[in-house]
């Protein structure tokens, strides 16, 4: 448990650095995890149509889902949209620095799913985005 609830996760859950809604923004997408009601809404600003210059999220849910969203926002700033599209579930696990069972993995991956659906300009966030 002390592994799962690492200090960085509790800290980012309680005082997220990238919580909010960017106005104006270039990309916006939101979705929830119907299993537990976790919700994530992401807004991005993109410079020159290609590089993420600002990122923010709003939402509610467990510490894992909210901390992973915050860490993900931090990590995408400065990345090109191509680099964002190439992010994988392993990248999220590396950010969190923990191992997760199948149920909590869904919590951790919600923000990546929302982010990629937004960047791809898809109508809905599918599981394939984080496969």
């Amino acid at each position, binding site marked *: *448990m*002390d592994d*799962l*609830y690492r200090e960085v996760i*509790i800290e980012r*859950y*309680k005082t997220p650095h990238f919580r909010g809604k960017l106005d104006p923004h270039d990309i916006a997408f939101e979705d929830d995890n119907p*299993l*537990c*009601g*976790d919700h994530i809404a992401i807004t991005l600003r993109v410079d020159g149509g290609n590089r993420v210059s600002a990122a923010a999220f709003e939402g*509610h*849910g*467990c*510490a*894992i889902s909210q901390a992973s969203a915050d860490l993900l926002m931090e990590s995408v700033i400065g990345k090109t949209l191509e680099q964002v599209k190439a992010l994988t579930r392993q990248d999220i696990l590396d950010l969190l620095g923990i191992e997760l069972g199948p149920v*909590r993995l869904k*919590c951790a991956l919600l923000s990546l799913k929302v982010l990629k659906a937004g960047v791809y300009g898809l109508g809905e966030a599918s599981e394939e985005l984080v496969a």
Partner: protein
Amino acid sequence: MSLDVFRIRQDFPILSRELRPGVPLVYLDSTATTQKPRAVLSAMDDFYRRSNANIHRGIHMLAEEATALYEKSREQVAEFIHAPAARQVIFTRNASESLNLVAYTWGRANLRAGDVVILTEMEHHSNLVPWQMLAAERGVKLEFIPVSEDGLLDLEAYRALLALAHPRLVAFTHMSNVLGTINPAAEIIRMAHAAGAVTLVDGAQSVPHIPLDVQALDVDFLAFSAHKMLGPTGIGVLYGKAALLESMPPFLGGGDMIKAVHLRSFTPNEIPHKFEAGTPAIAEAVGFGAAVAYLTQVGMEAVAAHEREIVAYALERLQEIPGVHVLGPSAEKRGAVAAFTLKGVHPHDVSQIVDTFGVAVRAGHHCAQPLHEKFGIPATTRASFYIYNTPAEVDRLINAIYEVKRIFG
């Protein structure tokens, strides 16, 4: 009459398991499914080792034995709920299937566009979605008895609904799997009958926990599951009044539910077989019989008394923790369930952390999403208790919640 919880615990092999070295299991999730005593495990094991055969119509000895064991379980279950006759006990897969059976057969034979079905805001999805499906298909109208802030049904609002809506059916849970509220079933049924409505009770939570007499309640249909009352998964019950069951069209078609079949027609069997198509869960029925025998031996009055005590203690201890809010009514109006929120911590995180102390609780909306929406919370953590739980286990839960608070600071 009281119950010797320490002796009872000896009957449940799983309760002596250590989840991790030095961390014994504290099982507080019996509302989802209960653990099984040795009597149930060995009844099923014996059945497969000694008597296994398909039931009905077999002429050989094993088939006769299996049939007798299966039908004996039906009689035990009938006696347990004080049904007038065993043929009024239909074996299904679970309470959900029983509720669906009523919606599918009685509902489709009796409900027309504009007919009203009264439900409550505290229903489990299994007594909500089948009626929503019927509403979409038939134009049946659904009305809901509201739930008050303290988790009780508003019977005045119910009275008004009955007068206005002329309902055909009142279908409600006897005990909420989230709030723990034990609803005044006899009164709700009496009022429904006075208004000319048929009644369906979801007894998935009440039958395992409180003495129940279908004749005293005068209920028309009662649904419940074996696995929530010490029995195996895969078998449940629909009890019904004989005249109603006989008037209903069959549910699934196949073997056993027919008297005669021709190429273009069939004659349905008598009840209960009319509603039991195909090979049923035979070993599970045998295990269910053993579960009912076990509960009868303990005594349902003693079960209920033990649970009142343990839930009262759990409420007292939970409420002393700053930031904990327990949903539902006071201890004397509830069964052995305590769903709560902890300020600033999501229920999944609570559940995950207390699990590391061996404490098994459930987190989520517990198949009652509309109820959580009503109270404006996405999810709760739920501790639930049964005959094998002790006050010391409540203490283990409370200590674990203090650990959650420490971690989340």
